[in-house]
């Protein structure tokens, strides 16, 4: 066991792949000497130099577009947007190009690109630097969407994402960047997409979550355990492909579910999963499908307001309790 931060997990995955394959390159705003706005690329520029770790102008359309075009020509680009909020600026290239090219062209062309995007609130970034926009990406056929919750997963999922022949939106949680986790050095290897992790086994209710909310969910689970409620916590790890099997198995056992994410609740991806459960597993359920998310507001600046708007342990706890 050794300690590793989430940011290091991401960086080391990039390093591993870049050492392995000269066609893996990284670019984005200030990812070079500066080491990335959140320090994620760190020293990669020193190791791989200007040609393979490139600072770009502020042109998100060109960043995503260059990823698409280079991927179409046999490169494995990793493009970083500084905040997921800036996806709005490069959305066409992701949605109408990257996601659809393979299909539109009858399978002729693959787009093995990774788009890394830091998401979520909690750093006082206010409305334009704090969004959780994974639901947009999951709604686009052709995209894969990954959202790790810890260093080991970040490492293993990014290895896989870089090798994946399809475009992967790799969402990173800003607050987790600095969080240290224990990693098993013998397990530093690729993790397949579409395999959720049962973080905590339980028999009474299933919490389905991912990213930062895995930690809040575990805390909530601990709290209610004192009252004899035995919670199972599932970390989805990849939002698409979605590990339906693990979800089904858990709900067949617990018959209750709470879905938790940091997204504003209206239109959240958790809604889609809930809808899937309500359609396909209805007869397994013995209580409402509870959902916890952020309030339906932009993220406010003031720390107190932000904390109020964002979901927390107490919200999860209350949602779980409401089922008993």
């Amino acid at each position, binding site marked *: 066991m050794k300690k590793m931060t989430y940011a290091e997990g991401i960086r080391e995955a990039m390093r591993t792949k870049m050492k392995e394959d*000269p*066609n893996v*390159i990284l670019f984005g705003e200030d990812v070079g000497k500066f080491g990335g706005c959140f320090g994620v690329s760190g020293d990669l520029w020193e190791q791989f130099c200007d*040609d*393979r770790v*490139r600072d*770009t*102008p502020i*042109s998100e*359309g*060109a960043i*995503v*577009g*260059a*990823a*698409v*075009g*280079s*991927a*179409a*020509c*046999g*490169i494995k*680009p990793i493009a970083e947007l500084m905040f997921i909020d800036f996806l709005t600026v490069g959305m*066409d*290239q992701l949605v*109408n*190009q990257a996601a659809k*090219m*393979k*299909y*539109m*062209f*009858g*399978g*002729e*062309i*693959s787009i093995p690109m990774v788009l890394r995007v830091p998401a979520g609130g909690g750093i006082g970034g206010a409305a334009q630097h704090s969004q959780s926009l994974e639901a947009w990406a999951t709604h686009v*056929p*052709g995209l*894969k969407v990954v959202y790790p919750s810890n260093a080991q997963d970040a490492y293993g999922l990014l290895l896989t994402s870089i090798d*994946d*022949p*399809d475009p992967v939106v790799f969402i990173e949680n800003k607050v987790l960047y600095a969080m240290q986790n224990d990693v098993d050095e013998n397990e530093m290897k690729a993790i397949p997409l579409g395999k959720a992790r049962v973080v905590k086994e339980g028999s009474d209710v299933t919490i389905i979550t991912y990213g930062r909310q895995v930690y809040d969910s575990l805390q909530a689970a601990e709290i209610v355990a004192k009252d004899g409620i035995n919670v199972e916590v599932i970390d989805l790890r990849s939002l698409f*492909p979605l590990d339906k099997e693990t979800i089904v198995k858990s709900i067949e056992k617990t018959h209750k579910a709470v879905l938790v994410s940091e997204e504003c609740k209206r239109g959240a991806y958790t809604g889609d999963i809930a809808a899937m459960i309500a359609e396909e597993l209805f007869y397994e359920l013995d209580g409402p499908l509870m959902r916890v998310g952020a309030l339906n507001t932009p993220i406010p600046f003031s720390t107190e307001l932000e904390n109020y708007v964002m979901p927390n342990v107490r919200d999860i706890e209350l949602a779980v309790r409401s089922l008993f």
Partner: protein
Amino acid sequence: MKITNEQLKEMYLTMLKIRKFETSAMDLFADGKIPGFVHLYIGEEAVATGACANLREDDYITSTHRGHGHIIAKGGELNYMMAELFGKEDGYCNGKGGSMHIADATKGILGANGIVGAGHNIAVGSGLAIQTKKTDQVCICFFGDASTNQGTFHEALNLASVWKLPVVFVCENNGYGISVSQERHQAITDISVRGASYNMPGITIDGNDLFAVYEAVGEAVARARKGQGPTLIECKTYRWRGHFEGDPTVYRPEGELEAWLKKDPIPRVEKYFIENELMTEEEIKEMNDNVDKMVEEAIEFAENSPIPSLESALKDVYSDIVEEGRVR
């Protein structure tokens, strides 16, 4: 740059293929055989032809909604193209793409594109791939005058220039974005002036002059291959048809089309052949007949190709995932 007779004949053949393919597509659309949108290249043949004549098979192009000409000029095959226009299984995209989404990876054709301005940055990416692999390939990016007002144009040219990427930006200035004339969509006359914003060479040429296009793009391609960076080339031309088939072209001033019909790029080359005794009238006629046959064959190929199987609708969304289809 010297053009050999063989090259010139090859280019002439290409122009004929484009013209005749497009004329047929026009008729087939009118007959209801082709669904969706069709944007024809008639009148602009010299641009794609002269430009692509400078490319190798392993070079790349990006194209637009008005892509048939570029694709033919880069070596796209008429049979597969026509079958795609019909939405048939043997089409380039197995019927999933249609006129606006034809690609051929084996020929470096990175796709027609239904999003105005999207090709620019894909071309930049292609240049980035070439630079990363350290080959001497190049990419030509084709686009229309009106697309140069899209933010992507600006971002692409800026990035290509900062990184000195091997991309040649070929603007087809046909005077319109759908119904909006150039003077109403930008306050400049020569789009090539925009090169200066990126410290990139920019020139304007007669896009209906095959020789001029061949030469200007040839120089730019040579520069790009040598790692000397991108170039912006504006080719003034005109589309004879409406923006898409079905467009009544109410926005055209009287006489404009007629004036441009006189600048038809094809007879200009024929005249050159005759004057320089490179081809006889008969040889020209024979070549025309051959191309007519090719296009007829393509139509037959398309007609005979099966309708795609319904399950195929579920394929190629991902490389490794196929979801379930309809129960119905």
